[in-house]
């Protein structure tokens, strides 16, 4: 019941409550933010769930640590978290510089039928594989813009670049994805209309 009372509170307000010692705020923030952080980290890391979970725990730990000093209204909590995740993932990707795309599941191998859910999953997997073929910064910008649904100004804050640079990165990224995925259109349920 107490959690229901907090359900309308913004992430910002909940983080301030957590910083003031409220025991309920952490649970609600975790429920809200952990799935998004995990999904974003997994996309940047090419679907490596274990590594994405490590990044998620680390990013959330940094959020708890900054809570007492959090200045309400200055930045969105998700923007701050995505920036932390971006930095953590970039560091990890740098360490394993060469990404073997062959290790990512081939969508064609796991599509025994034309079941819609499988097609959807295959599309997601094909997109993930194509994303991993992009340069890091293009992958981050495209993921934030077109999958996480962040605005260009927010992405500019997350990546600490200009809005124009974000637009350029997403445009180039989308163009490369469109080219990479063109060959998948038949097997993933698209005609050449």
């Amino acid at each position: 019941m107490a959690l229901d009372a907090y359900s309308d509170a913004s992430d910002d307000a909940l983080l301030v409550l957590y910083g003031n010692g409220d025991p309920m705020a952490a649970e609600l923030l975790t429920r809200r933010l952990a799935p998004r952080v995990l999904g974003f980290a997994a996309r940047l890391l090419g679907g490596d769930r274990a590594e994405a979970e490590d990044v998620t725990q680390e990013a959330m730990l940094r959020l708890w640590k900054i809570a007492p000093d959090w200045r309400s209204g200055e930045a969105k909590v998700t923007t701050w978290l995505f920036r932390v995740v971006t930095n953590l993932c970039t560091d990890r990707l740098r360490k394993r510089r060469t990404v073997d795309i062959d290790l990512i599941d081939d969508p064609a191998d796991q599509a025994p039928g034309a079941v819609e859910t499988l097609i959807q999953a295959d599309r997601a997997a094909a997109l993930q594989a194509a994303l991993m073929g992009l340069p890091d910064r293009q992958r981050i910008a495209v993921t934030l813009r077109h999958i996480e649904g962040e605005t260009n100004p927010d992405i500019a804050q997350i990546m600490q670049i200009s809005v124009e640079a974000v637009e350029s990165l997403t445009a180039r990224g989308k163009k490369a994805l469109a080219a990479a995925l063109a060959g998948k259109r038949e097997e993933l349920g698209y005609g050449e209309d």
Partner: protein
Amino acid sequence: MAKTDRKKTDGIKQNDMLDDRALQAFFDAARDDTITPSDALMTAILDDAAAEQPQPAMSAVAPPPDLALATARDLRRARGVWADLKAMIGGWPALAGMATATLAGVWIGFSAPIQLEQWSGGLILSGDYTTTEATFALEDMAPSYLGTGLLMEDEG
């Protein structure tokens, strides 16, 4: 693959790339393909949160020893000045004693100048009333509010 096709002819260039609508379908599929955090991850995150959370000023949980003094101070402050004063004096029994002493003082102040003069051998007070009475009736020992004692004397 796309590059190879593009080299063949410009006529099929539109087939080398997905249009925005088709690409959007891939993005939609990716957005729906959510990952649910494991219970172990959620527990680990909440454990971290509990470990890092600042302690509230009035916690339901027993405070560590170094916070105990501060909390007691806070409680005293919240209890108020009057409660502090009462505690300093010694509680309700001491206050009752003080009230009795105060009333006795008032009574003595109204009723006993003559008695006081008698006890002091005429050294403290002087004036007419010191010579009007040498003996005392019972009413002289009672408080003489509003001069009733004097009225009774006159009538008697």
